[in-house]
């Protein structure tokens, strides 16, 4: 397993009040994303565990775009990856942020 961590500056704080959200499952080509609060409002920390080694540059690109585009400020995000494609990762991250905005 490869473990990656990205500490990113964000442009927008996360919305909603929900303390935690989980989207996706760990399956082939899929991933689960756990979102929790607790970071500073202008920052987002993403930890990734992936069985696919050597894709750090892709994770870097996807997470950087995510932090720049989404309301992710204040979130601590943990990812268990099942070998998802970048488009699936981006979709799950977007879904996670939306879920945090929804009431429980």
């Amino acid at each position: 397993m490869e473990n990656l961590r990205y500490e990113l500056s964000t442009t927008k704080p996360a919305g909603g009040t929900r303390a935690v959200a989980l989207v996706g499952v760990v399956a082939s080509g899929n991933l689960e994303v756990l979102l929790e609060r607790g970071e500073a409002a202008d920052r987002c920390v993403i930890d990734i565990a992936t069985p696919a080694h050597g894709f750090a540059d892709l994770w870097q690109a996807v997470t950087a775009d995510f932090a720049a585009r989404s309301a992710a400020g204040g979130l601590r995000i943990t990812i268990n990856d099942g070998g998802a494609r970048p488009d699936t990762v981006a979709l799950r991250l977007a879904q996670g942020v939306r879920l945090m905005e929804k009431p429980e």
Partner: protein
Amino acid sequence: MTSPTAAAPHAPLPADPHRSWYEESARGRLSHLLDAGSFSEFLGPQRRELSPHLALFNLPRQFDDGIVVGAGALAGKPVLVAAQEGRFMGGAIGEVHGAKLTGLLHAARQMKRDVVILFDTGGVRLQEANAGELAISEIIRATVQARAAGVRVVGLLGGRAGCYGGGSLIAGCCSALVISEQGRLSVSGPEVIETNKGVEEFDSKDRALVWRTMGGKHRYLIGGVDLFVADTVAAFRAGALAALDRPPTLDQAVLAAEQARLERRLARFGDTADGTEVWARLGVNQPTDVPDMDLDDFLTIANRQREGADAAR
């Protein structure tokens, strides 16, 4: 199938009772099964109780180890629930996964609280096979102990991984079982039989054969399960409620009745080679039409012709 629901333009889709049980995740099923807002999870994903064994195989782990356990309410009645996630390692049972269910059943016995298990499993998780095998044995013991204490343990069978291997033995110890057409209940999976005994014994690519042999309709017709429902979250909720009305009793008389029931099954159908022959012998007029029948047509025929389990389980 989900029928379209009329809604104002741009309105978010309403919570849809027609959503497919088969398609839902473990968490999605629970959210539709239980009364809204009633669910509390034990050892949820934030606790990160991951499998200690998968890293050895460079395999990814899941925060809940593929099972969600907790407490909730069904039509106001408190229940304990466990839902397996069939997409994570095929819902396979490992050390943590199994222990969560064992602990839940131990509590159920002490609390005299009914349990609903949402099965979706291929059986033992091979990467932690010994721990998984033992967990299944412990779950079985905890299940029968709970039942002896008067607790209903209801199994719901309609997940995408089916209910195979040791999971099917756990199901066999439940007080009542609810299945959909998509549900499969069997010890050895089609691929396992084919690998060990050859394609002549079982062609696992012949999906219709799979369903005729271990699918929901066959299991309902031979009395292997108690209720047959549509593949929707609402139907499974109604099925779970009906199953919770059945007695939990597990004693000498129930087991003697089950012995008689299973012996009668072998005497009646033991020489058949295919599900269609079994159904013909049950008196179904056009047995080859059974797989294509819709729910209502199937239930009309099945409820007239099927072998019932009559709480002999």
